[in-house]
C-alpha cells in the first residue's frame, strides 16, 4: 500500500475492489484517541468532545487510562450519538493513533471501512497499515517543529493540531472551538493565541488534504437540550455539599480521589463564611482508610454529617469499623467508586464487583444499605439522600458508584434542589425532651420501626448520657452478655433494615409494549447500555420488561417484578453475579429463574454485549431465535 508524500488519502482503485465501503455516518460514530499519558492530550481530546456537544450533538466520552503518571498508553473514546446512546458502543470508526507503543492493537480495533489519523512525520511501512481502512497521514511533529520554538509547546500543540484536522474532515465549526478555547483560558489570554494557531494550522492542513476523506460528519443538531455535562465524582461531591456534610475524611485512592477533591473545591466556593473567612466544613486527608472511616464514625456519633470516599481496597480495610457503626448504630456515609477487583485488581478500570463486600461488610451478621446511582444526576441526588438515610437509620449507607460514572463526563439531567427541603436529622432526643423527663433508652424500639432514639454528647447535664460500644448491650446501652439482650438488638436491627426498604430510592420499572418474553434487572452504570440494548431488542421484536434496582434492601416491588416473569436476566458488571446472589439470598428466589448476564473485563458494558448475551440465552432456552447479524 502506498501513502503518497502529499498526504492525500488513498483512493479506492481496482486493486482494492474487495475493500469495504468507507463508513458513512452523520452524528453517529466513534472516535478514539490513542495517546501517551502525560503528553497533554487530555485537554485537546476534551476540547474535541465539547465542540461536538456545543453543536447540539450528544457525545459520550470515556477515559481509558493507566495507573501511571507519565509514559504509558492512555485512550480517550468519544461516542458521537445523535440518538443519545450514552453507553459505550464498542468498535472504532476513526482512530487517532498517536502512540507507537499501542499501534498494532489500535489499528486492529478500527472497524472495516473505518479511518486512521496518524503522525506521518516518520515514514510508516505499508505493512504496518491496513488495506480495509482509509488513512489520513498528517506530519504533525514536522509541522509543529516548524511552527513552534518551545519543545514543550510543540508537544502540547501537536494535540490541538489534530483536533484541527478532525474539525476539517468532520465539519466541526471553527468558531465553536475558538469560543471553547476562550472559555477554557479565560483570563489567560496569552494561552488562547498559540492554541488557536495550532488549531487553525491543523484545520487548514485538513481542509487542503482531507476535505472529503472521511464520510463521517458532524451536523448541527438540537439534541443536547438542557442537559449538563459533568463527572459523577464532582456530582457526588456537590450532593454532599447540598446534603449538609460538614466532615469529609478520606484517603487517596483511584477512582474516588476526585470526590474529596471536588468536595473541597465546592466547599471553598460555597461554605466559607464571608465575614470571617472561616470554613463551615472540615476535610481531613487521613493516614489510611481505617482512620478515614473512624473519623466519619466519630463525627457521626457527635452529630455532624460526615462521609468518606473510597474504592474496593479501602472498603476492605474499613470493614471492622463498618461493623461497629452497624452494631453501635452510628450514621456514616461511604462513597464507593468501584473499580476492578479483587486485591489491587484493575485500579483504572470499571466494575460493579463490591456489592457483596459492601452489603455484608464486617464479621458477624450485618446488612448495609446500598444506593446505586445511574449517572451524575443520581450521584448528586443519592449523595444528599444518603446523608439523610444514614441519620434516619443510624447506620452506614453506601453510595455505590463506579469508575465509569465517577471519572467520565456524562450528559445528564440538570441538578435540582428544592429550597424548602429540610435535612432529616433522624431520631435525636434533644435537651428540651430530656429535660421534660422522657425515658431515654438508647436501643429502645419506641416506635416499632427498629430505629431507636439517640442523644448527642453535651446535650444535658444529668440525662441522656450513654456509653457507645461495639460489644453487646441491653436496650439502655448497658453492657450485657445476656443472650436475650443480644437477640433483642439483633432482631431490632433486622426490623430497622426492613424499615429501610420503603425509605430508599425505589426501582424504576418499564413495561414492554406487548407480552414480555422475559424480564431484565440491571443497576448503576449499566443503565445507558441497557436503554440502548432494549431499543435494539425491540427493533427485533424482542420485548422485555425491565427494572432498574436503585437500592438495597430491595423494596417489595423487586420481588413482585421477578414473580411476574418466568425468566429474569440480571445484567451486571462483575464475574460472580453479585446482585443475583443478593436477590436469591434476600428474597428467597429460585436461582434458576435469574439468568446472569455478566460483563467484567474492566471496560464499560455495551449494548452490543447485552443484546448478544440475551439473544444467545434466549436461543438456548428455545424461547425465540433472533435474526442473525442484528446483534453485531
Amino acid at each position: 500500500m502506498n501513502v503518497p508524500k502529499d498526504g492525500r488519502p488513498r483512493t479506492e482503485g481496482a486493486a482494492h475492489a474487495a475493500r469495504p465501503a468507507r463508513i458513512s455516518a452523520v452524528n453517529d460514530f466513534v472516535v478514539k484517541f490513542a495517546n501517551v499519558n502525560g503528553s497533554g492530550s487530555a485537554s485537546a481530546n476534551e476540547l474535541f468532545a465539547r465542540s461536538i456537544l456545543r453543536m447540539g450533538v450528544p457525545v459520550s466520552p470515556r477515559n481509558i487510562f493507566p495507573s501511571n503518571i507519565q509514559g504509558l498508553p492512555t485512550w480517550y473514546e468519544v461516542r458521537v450519538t445523535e440518538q443519545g446512546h450514552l453507553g459505550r458502543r464498542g468498535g472504532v470508526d476513526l482512530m487517532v493513533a498517536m502512540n507507537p507503543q499501542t499501534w498494532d492493537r489500535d489499528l486492529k480495533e478500527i472497524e472495516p471501512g473505518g479511518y486512521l489519523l496518524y503522525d506521518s512525520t516518520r515514514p510508516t511501512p505499508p505493512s504496518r497499515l491496513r488495506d480495509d481502512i482509509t488513512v489520513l497521514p498528517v506530519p504533525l511533529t514536522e509541522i509543529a517543529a516548524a511552527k513552534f520554538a518551545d519543545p514543550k509547546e510543540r508537544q502540547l500543540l501537536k494535540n490541538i493540531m489534530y483536533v484541527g484536522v478532525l474539525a476539517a474532515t468532520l465539519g466541526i465549526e471553527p468558531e465553536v472551538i475558538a469560543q471553547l478555547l476562550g472559555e477554557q483560558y479565560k483570563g489567560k489570554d496569552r494561552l488562547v493565541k498559540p492554541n488557536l494557531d495550532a488549531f487553525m494550522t491543523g484545520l487548514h492542513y485538513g481542509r487542503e488534504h482531507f476535505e472529503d476523506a472521511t464520510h463521517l460528519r458532524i451536523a448541527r443538531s438540537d439534541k443536547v437540550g438542557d442537559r449538563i455535562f459533568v463527572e459523577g465524582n464532582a456530582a457526588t461531591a456537590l450532593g454532599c455539599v447540598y446534603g449538609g456534610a460538614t466532615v469529609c475524611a478520606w484517603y487517596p485512592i483511584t477512582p474516588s480521589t476526585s470526590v474529596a477533591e471536588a468536595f473541597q473545591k465546592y466547599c471553598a466556593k460555597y461554605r466559607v463564611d464571608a465575614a470571617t473567612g472561616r470554613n463551615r466544613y472540615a476535610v481531613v486527608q487521613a493516614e489510611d482508610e481505617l482512620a478515614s472511616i473512624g473519623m466519619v464514625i466519630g463525627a457521626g456519633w457527635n452529630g455532624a454529617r460526615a462521609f468518606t470516599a473510597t474504592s474496593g481496597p479501602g472498603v476492605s480495610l474499613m470493614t471492622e469499623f463498618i461493623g461497629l457503626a452497624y452494631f453501635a448504630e452510628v450514621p456514616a456515609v461511604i462513597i464507593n467508586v468501584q473499580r476492578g477487583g479483587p486485591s489491587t485488581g484493575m485500579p483504572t478500570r470499571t466494575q460493579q464487583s463490591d456489592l457483596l463486600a459492601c452489603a455484608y461488610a464486617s464479621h458477624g451478621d450485618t446488612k448495609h444499605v446500598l444506593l446505586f446511582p445511574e449517572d451524575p444526576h443520581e450521584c448528586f441526588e443519592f449523595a444528599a439522600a444518603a446523608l439523610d438515610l444514614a441519620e434516619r437509620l443510624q447506620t452506614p449507607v453506601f453510595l455505590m458508584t463506579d469508575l465509569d460514572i465517577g471519572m467520565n463526563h456524562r450528559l445528564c439531567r440538570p441538578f435540582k434542589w428544592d429550597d424548602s427541603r429540610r435535612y432529616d436529622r433522624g431520631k435525636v432526643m434533644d435537651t428540651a425532651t430530656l429535660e421534660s423527663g422522657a425515658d431515654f433508652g438508647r436501643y429502645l424500639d419506641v416506635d416499632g420501626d427498629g430505629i431507636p432514639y439517640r442523644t448527642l454528647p453535651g446535650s444535658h447535664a444529668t440525662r441522656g448520657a450513654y456509653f457507645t460500644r461495639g460489644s453487646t448491650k441491653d436496650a439502655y446501652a448497658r453492657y450485657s452478655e445476656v443472650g436475650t439482650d443480644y437477640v433483642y438488638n439483633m432482631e431490632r436491627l433486622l426490623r430497622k433494615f426492613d424499615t429501610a426498604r420503603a425509605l430508599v430510592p425505589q426501582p424504576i420499572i418499564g413495561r414492554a409494549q406487548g407480552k414480555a418474553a422475559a424480564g431484565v434487572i440491571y443497576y448503576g452504570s449499566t443503565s445507558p447500555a441497557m436503554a440502548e440494548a432494549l431499543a435494539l431488542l425491540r427493533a427485533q421484536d424482542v420485548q422485555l420488561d425491565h427494572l432498574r434496582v436503585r437500592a438495597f434492601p430491595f423494596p417489595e416491588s423487586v420481588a413482585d417484578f421477578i414473580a411476574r416473569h418466568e425468566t429474569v436476566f440480571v445484567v451486571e458488571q462483575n464475574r460472580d453475579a453479585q446482585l443475583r446472589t443478593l436477590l436469591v439470598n434476600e428474597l428467597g428466589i429460585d436461582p434458576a429463574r435469574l439468568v446472569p448476564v455478566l460483563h467484567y473485563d474492566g471496560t464499560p458494558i455495551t449494548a452490543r454485549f447485552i443484546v448478544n448475551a440475551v439473544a444467545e440465552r434466549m436461543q438456548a432456552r428455545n424461547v425465540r431465535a433472533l435474526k442473525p447479524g442484528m446483534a453485531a
Partner: protein
Amino acid sequence: MTYLAKPRLHHPDLPTNTLGYTRRDYEGKISTLCAGCGHDSISAAIIQACWELSIEPHRVAKLSGIGCSSKTPDYFLGNSHGFNSVHGRMPSVMTGANLANRDLIYLGVSGDGDSASIGLGQFAHLIRRGVNMTYICENNGVYGLTKGQFSATADRGSKSKRGAVNRDAPIDMVSLALQLGITYVARSFSGDKDQLVPLIKGALSHRGAALLDVISPCVAFNNHAGSTKSYDYVREHNDAVNRLDFMPRREGIVASYEPGEVIEITQHDGSRLRLRKLTDGFDPGDALAAITHIHQHHARGEIVTGLLYVDPSADDLHEHLNTVPTPLNRLTESDLCPGSAALERLNADLA
C-alpha cells in the same frame, strides 16, 4: 464491664466544687478490673481532676479503644457520653468527634497494646494533627484481657510472669510523641496521685494534643520481680524532673519564667502551670533535650516522670483547618446548603 451503677446516696457533708457537685457526681459504674489495678487509681485521679476543675461532666466526651484500660471510661464521669471504639482506632474516632463539636472536652483513654501495638499508626497521626484532647495511655507493658502477653512498651530484658524474657526494643510513647510534635506531654505513675492529678488538670486545660503516659502496673500479669512495670520497680526507679501545681485562670496575674526553682507557664485558657524543679537544668520548653534526658535515664533503668514538655501557645486541628467557631454539628441548612439559585448557575456552567 458492668451493669452496676453505684448507689447515689452519699454523705451530706461531702465537699462540693464551684458548680455544687461532689466528687460522687463525677463517678461512673463500679469497676470490674482486678483489685489493686493501677487503672482504677487513674480513674480516681481523673474524677478528682475534673471535680477540682469544676468541669460540667456532660461537657466531656470519653473515648477509648479496646482492652482493660479502654473499659475504664465506664467507671468515671457517668454523666458524660462515652465511646468504646475498636482496638487501636480510638484516635480516628476522637478526631472525627472533635471535628464535629469543638466545644466539648475530649478525653481519650487507651493502653499500651491499644496505643503502641495495634494502634501506633493512629496514635501518631492524632498527635501530629494536634487534635485538641487529652490522651491517657495507661501503660502496663502487657496485654491484660488476653492474660499477660508482652506489649510494645515492654522493656528489653523485662520478664513475663511465666518467665519469658522480652527481646524486642520498647516503644517510648513520650519520646515518640515529642518527635511527632506533641504540645503537652507528661509521664506519671498510677501510684502517685499527687503527681498525676495536676498533670491531668494541666492536660485538660491545654489547647492542642496532650499526652499522659501513666505507668499503671498490672497486678495480675506484670507485677512480679523482673518486670520493669511493677509497683516496686517503678517506685524504686521513678525519677521525677518536676512537680506541677496547677492553678486555674485568675485575672491580673502575668505569667513569666522565674529564675531559680520555679517555672510558671500560662496556657491558652489562662490557667497556669507552676513547676517546681526537681532536676537541675531540665527545661520543659525544650523537646529535644527532653528526648535526650528520657533516653539517658532509660539506659540506666530509670523512669523519668513529670511534665516533660509543654508549648503553651499551641494551636489545634480546628485552627489548622480554619473552621468556624460554631461547632460543625450545630450548623443548619442555611449555613450549609448553597440553594437552588446557586445550583442553576452551576448547571449553566456545566452545559
